[in-house]
């Protein structure tokens, strides 16, 4: 809000609280959107392991030679922390408040469970799951904050330093060795949490800002479920290949006369 200074017309004051709150809301939503889209793109890129080590190495090298991977690691880490800081401002601070929300969400989800087949369309007792989904979004977000930080820092070191493997950068050999050595467990947990958090988060974002005027909420919910299961499925297969349990199912794409 502008205020009158003594002799010099109006000067702008510090950003008003309302404007700051709007910025927080926009940045937390936008960073979530970018991170979710990045995650899915990332999953497709990591999916190159399905064609075998050669495809994976080639792609990793391309992204590093053209300096795409290095700045991305830094930008994603920053976005990740910004999103964590801003999104967490909505989590109630007191344990009693969280308990109340959990209890409420549980009640709302269970009330619809006993809904008999005879219930009419106007029955007020349909299932409601979104309150519970929000609580799980907070929980998965916490897990992602811990395991995701670990992963981004680990891969940051891999991309920027020659500490892992023979050169700076991601190589299939070291990635497989790492996952096989035991990282498959935190990665499996991270995968589940990230995919849940991202798809439910985007669904909520779309409803919040009114995309629901063009798509029904039911349609958005279905899109959310499809994205969740697709990337979860893809992630599991990728993880199995990286853990050396499954041989690359798309390896035939790169076999042939080429050297």
């Amino acid at each position, binding site marked *: 809000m502008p205020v009158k200074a003594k002799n010099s017309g109006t000067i702008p004051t510090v950003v008003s609280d*309302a404007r700051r709150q709007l910025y927080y809301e926009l940045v937390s939503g936008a960073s979530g959107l970018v991170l979710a889209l990045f995650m899915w793109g990332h999953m497709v890129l990591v999916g190159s392991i399905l064609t075998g080590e050669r495809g994976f190495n080639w792609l990793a090298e391309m992204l590093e030679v053209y300096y795409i991977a290095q700045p991305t690691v830094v930008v994603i880490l920053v976005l990740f922390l910004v999103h964590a800081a801003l999104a967490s401002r909505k989590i109630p601070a007191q344990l009693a408040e969280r308990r109340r929300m959990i209890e409420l969400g549980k009640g709302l989800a*269970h009330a619809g469970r006993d809904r*008999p087949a005879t219930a009419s369309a106007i029955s007020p007792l349909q299932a409601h799951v979104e309150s519970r989904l929000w609580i799980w979004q907070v929980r998965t977000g916490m897990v992602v904050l811990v395991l995701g930080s670990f992963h981004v820092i680990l891969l940051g070191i891999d991309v920027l330093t020659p500490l892992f493997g023979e050169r700076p950068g991601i190589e299939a050999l070291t990635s497989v060795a790492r996952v096989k050595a035991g990282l498959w467990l935190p990665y499996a947990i991270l995968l589940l949490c990230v995919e849940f958090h991202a798809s439910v988060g985007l669904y909520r974002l779309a*409803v919040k800002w009114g995309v629901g*005027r063009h798509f029904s909420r039911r349609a958005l919910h279905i899109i959310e479920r499809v994205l969740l299961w697709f990337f979860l499925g893809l992630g599991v297969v990728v993880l199995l290949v990286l853990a050396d349990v499954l041989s690359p199912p798309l390896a035939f794409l790169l076999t042939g006369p080429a050297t």
Partner: protein
Amino acid sequence: MTKKESGKARRLRFEIFRYNPEDPESEPHMQAFEIDEAPYMSLYIALNQIRETLDPSLQFDFACRSAICGSCGMMVNGRPTLGCRTLTSDLPEVVRLHPLPVFKLIGDLSVDTGTWFREMVEKSEAWIHAKEAFDPQAKEARMDDDLAQAIYEGERCIECGCCVASCGVANVNQNFAGPAGLNRIARFMMDPRDQRSDAEWFEVVSNSDGVFGCLGMMACHDVCPKELPLLEVYAYLRRKTLVAAFAGRS
């Protein structure tokens, strides 16, 4: 389970929250009552039957019994809804009844929603703010039909408090405008007769006690007995904050 069985009436078990804050002897507890289900029995009928035949001290509110007065909001198996329009045939054999949270408890299932709604109306000054003095001789300004309909949608709120009770934020933040409050604010923002500017509204809406307090849990929309388009209301308010903040500012 709850499937309608031909012929044989079910025996319903009501577990009802009992507490009288006026009585120092009273301790909050659950009390069970059993009655036979009758065809087309609503919670309104069931509770009256319990009061008439089993316990005359049971407190609950009903007035219109047709989902208009908004006094019979209660938690039915963990979900807020109107007692008068909830049929027992839509419920399992065991029905747990609690008073609506957030609001001040009067006793048993009866709560004081009026004080909460009055505070909300006073805080958001939910009445028409006109700049010019009212001229009773002048013709009423015309209003676009779609807009009139949209305003009427918001006006359909019966202030039963179900949305507020279902809202995780309203349950833990006393200052949050709440679903009904945001709906009321949007109704006056839409109204061209109200001459408060976008900038003025921006200060009211754009904060964590306004629309940005909303977590998007969507329970309010799902439980509203009048099926108000609450999610659209919040999206409208969010978009209006963008307009207020960025329009005409280059």
